């Protein structure tokens, strides 16, 4: 036990001290912030092509609808430059449109809106402009026109214009709520998808990065021949265990640092990125995450995503730990099998394929988390460590499926530790060419 601690401490400290670790830890949150912020920044752009109302309104109704629409647009989009109003009679509409096309071409306005008597009748309205393909923009303009047509009609029926104006001014926002087996859930669907994706990707990243770190570490001990001195003092099983635990804790340290730094970064950077609203959301959910105490690993998604339940957080953690041990021990065996950096990538290919196979199915599984494929992949020990967390965050997963998947991974873990321990024991002191499959079987057989 004392020796396990010595090995463990070396693996941990030497890594945590390294420049690359410090750099990765600091740059991680910057990266995540960009990834987390990008959809919102892009989304914000989409919602308001900021100059949305900078258009020409050609009013051929003869009823003054244009003036109302211009006012409505100005009120609705205060940040945008104001719309122009051109009032024409029905015969002048065509000429006015031709002129407007030129203005749009010269980028004097974004587009133009043509209001006709047909518009007042509720039939149609025409919009042409550079953003005519943007559903958001076109919807916003249509809603503005629609509202004013309504007001105009009501007034015609003798309803008090001011009251109509009053009644019709309200921002109706649609709030959505996901319902699961246990009733209402806290996160909305989009956040859940993002959360699931982020968690699965993070698990994958950590397993790849730190699994390979173990592989290189074994290879280094072999290549520098330090292995023999070490195994003369400590049993190979303890050496392997210390290595996996040490490097695993480095991974956990890294994630935790990212969480803390990300929460800090979000708290301070959110106002600049997302305005005051974003700041409030970030702080609130960061506080909520920490307050819930269950899922610190998800704090980096503090951006408007509420924490997941405690049991799910525990399941996620177990998935990571066991998934890491499973793959790390396989990587360690690969490292012990080969003698050079050139050979190692090739020898690691089967293990990488196992890992990648779970990631390439992430897209379809996210699209349909209840499908047979999603269920199978989340139960298969090789992909469960990544796919099960994805499913848990997306849809309600029956407890027995989670327990089943975890037991499967645990069994796979035991098998890979046993196998890798034997390959490691023999391979660590074997120099020369890469073993064939037959030789590998012999190693496993002959290890004490």
């Amino acid at each position: 036990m004392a020796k396990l601690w010595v090995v463990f401490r070396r693996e941990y400290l030497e890594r945590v001290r390294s420049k690359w670790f410090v750099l990765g830890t600091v740059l991680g949150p910057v990266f995540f912030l960009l990834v987390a912020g990008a959809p919102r920044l892009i989304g914000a752009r989409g919602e308001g092509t900021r100059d949305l109302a900078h258009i020409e309104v050609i009013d051929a109704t003869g009823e003054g609808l244009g003036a109302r629409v211009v006012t409505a647009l100005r009120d609705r989009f205060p940040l945008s430059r104001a719309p122009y109003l051109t009032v024409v009679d029905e015969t002048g509409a065509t000429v006015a449109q031709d002129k407007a096309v030129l203005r749009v071409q010269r980028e004097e306005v974004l587009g133009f809106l043509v209001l006709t008597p047909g518009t007042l009748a509720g039939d149609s309205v025409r919009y042409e402009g550079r953003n005519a393909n943007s559903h958001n923009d076109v919807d916003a303009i249509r809603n503005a026109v629609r509202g004013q047509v309504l007001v105009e009609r009501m007034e015609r029926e003798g309803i008090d214009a001011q009251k109509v104006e009053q009644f019709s001014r309200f921002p109706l926002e649609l709030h959505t709520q996901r319902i699961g087996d246990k009733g209402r859930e806290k996160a909305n669907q989009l956040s859940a998808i993002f959360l699931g994706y982020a968690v699965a990707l993070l698990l994958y990243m950590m397993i790849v990065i730190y699994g390979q770190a173990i592989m290189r570490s074994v290879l280094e001990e072999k290549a520098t021949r330090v292995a023999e001195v070490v195994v003369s003092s400590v049993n190979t099983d303890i050496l392997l265990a210390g290595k996996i635990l040490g490097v695993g804790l480095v991974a956990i340290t890294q994630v935790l640092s990212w969480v803390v730094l990300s929460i800090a970064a979000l708290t301070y950077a959110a106002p600049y990125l997302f305005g005051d609203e974003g700041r409030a959301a970030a702080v609130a959910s960061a506080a909520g995450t920490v307050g819930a105490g269950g899922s610190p690993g998800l704090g980096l998604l503090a951006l408007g995503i509420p924490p997941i339940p405690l049991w799910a957080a525990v399941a996620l953690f177990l998935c990571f730990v066991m998934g890491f041990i499973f793959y790390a021990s396989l990587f360690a065996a690969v490292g012990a099998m080969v003698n050079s950096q050139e050979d190692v990538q090739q020898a690691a290919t089967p293990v990488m394929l196992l890992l990648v196979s779970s990631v390439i199915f992430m897209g379809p599984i996210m699209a349909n988390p209840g499908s047979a494929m999603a269920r199978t992949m989340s139960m298969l020990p090789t992909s469960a460590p990544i796919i099960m967390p994805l499913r848990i965050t997306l849809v309600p997963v029956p407890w027995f499926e989670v327990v089943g998947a975890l037991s499967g991974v645990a069994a796979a873990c035991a098998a890979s530790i046993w196998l890798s321990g034997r390959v490691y024991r023999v391979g660590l002191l074997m120099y020369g060419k890469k073993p064939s499959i037959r030789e590998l079987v012999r190693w496993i057989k002959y290890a004490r």
Partner: protein
Amino acid sequence: MSDLAIDIRNVVKRYDQYAAVSDLSLAVPRGTVYGLLGPNGAGKTTTIRMMLNIIVPDSGSIILLGSPHRQSGITDRIGYLPEERGLYKKMQVRRVLRFLAELKGVKRRDADQRIDDWLRRLDLKNSEKDWGLAKVDELSRGMQQKVQFIGTLVHDPDLVILDEPFSGLDPINAQALKDAIVELKSRGKTVIFSTHVMDTAERLCDSVCIIARGRKVLDGAVAEVRRAHSGRMVALAVEGDARRLVAPVLADRRLISRVDDHNLYYELELAAGADAQEVLRRVVATGAAIQRFELVLPSLHQIFLERVGARGIEPGLTDG
């Protein structure tokens, strides 16, 4: 307490059909310097690795310092320098040494003190420079060898096992290593080292064991081994142009089994049953002018060649 530092009995290690070590027994008294001699591939490294519990023997028993070698804690009292040497390249020297010391159960505080002493002693730390703070790969090869050596001895082991310790050492480090071995012995420690350089073994070892193809060829105290093989070796020098005259005598396989021509003199190994006096009579009879005719104690080198090199190893030739 057993007075043997190493007591190996009937150890066998096979890899498929190939026997790396066959029925090997070794007894190394405490407080001695012991040489494990043999050609490359003789099974020296396998034997050493079995002692250190890196490889498990198929059968036989190994007792180190009075305890079975697999007993926990026994490896903490052993210092091991493998033939293939290396250290963690990117690690600070002091941290590597502390790691190796702690693996042997030395407390951190003690380890730091001892590392400091050793670094000073081997001039890796002086008023100008402390190499202990450098990374291993910043050190020259010679310095790395010193660090490796400190790693072997930092926990003050009772039994020191060195596998081909002199190979690749520069003369200065080789001298330092030799001094250290002598000093270890003077402090009552046991040192066993393997080598295929017989001269080193002859100068340094109290006792030796020669193994070849996994079998023991002979073992015992160096002086005794040499004495046991004396009377079989003759040094003969004749005047320059008389070399031609003695050639027929030297070619007589009934008298002389092997001739080693050193240019200035011959070294003759007598054939089984032949008598040195008979050889002398024959040489005199040729009329050659004899400058030297002497019965000599054979060097380990010659014994090695006689028992291993020339004829290889034959069945039944495993006694002392």
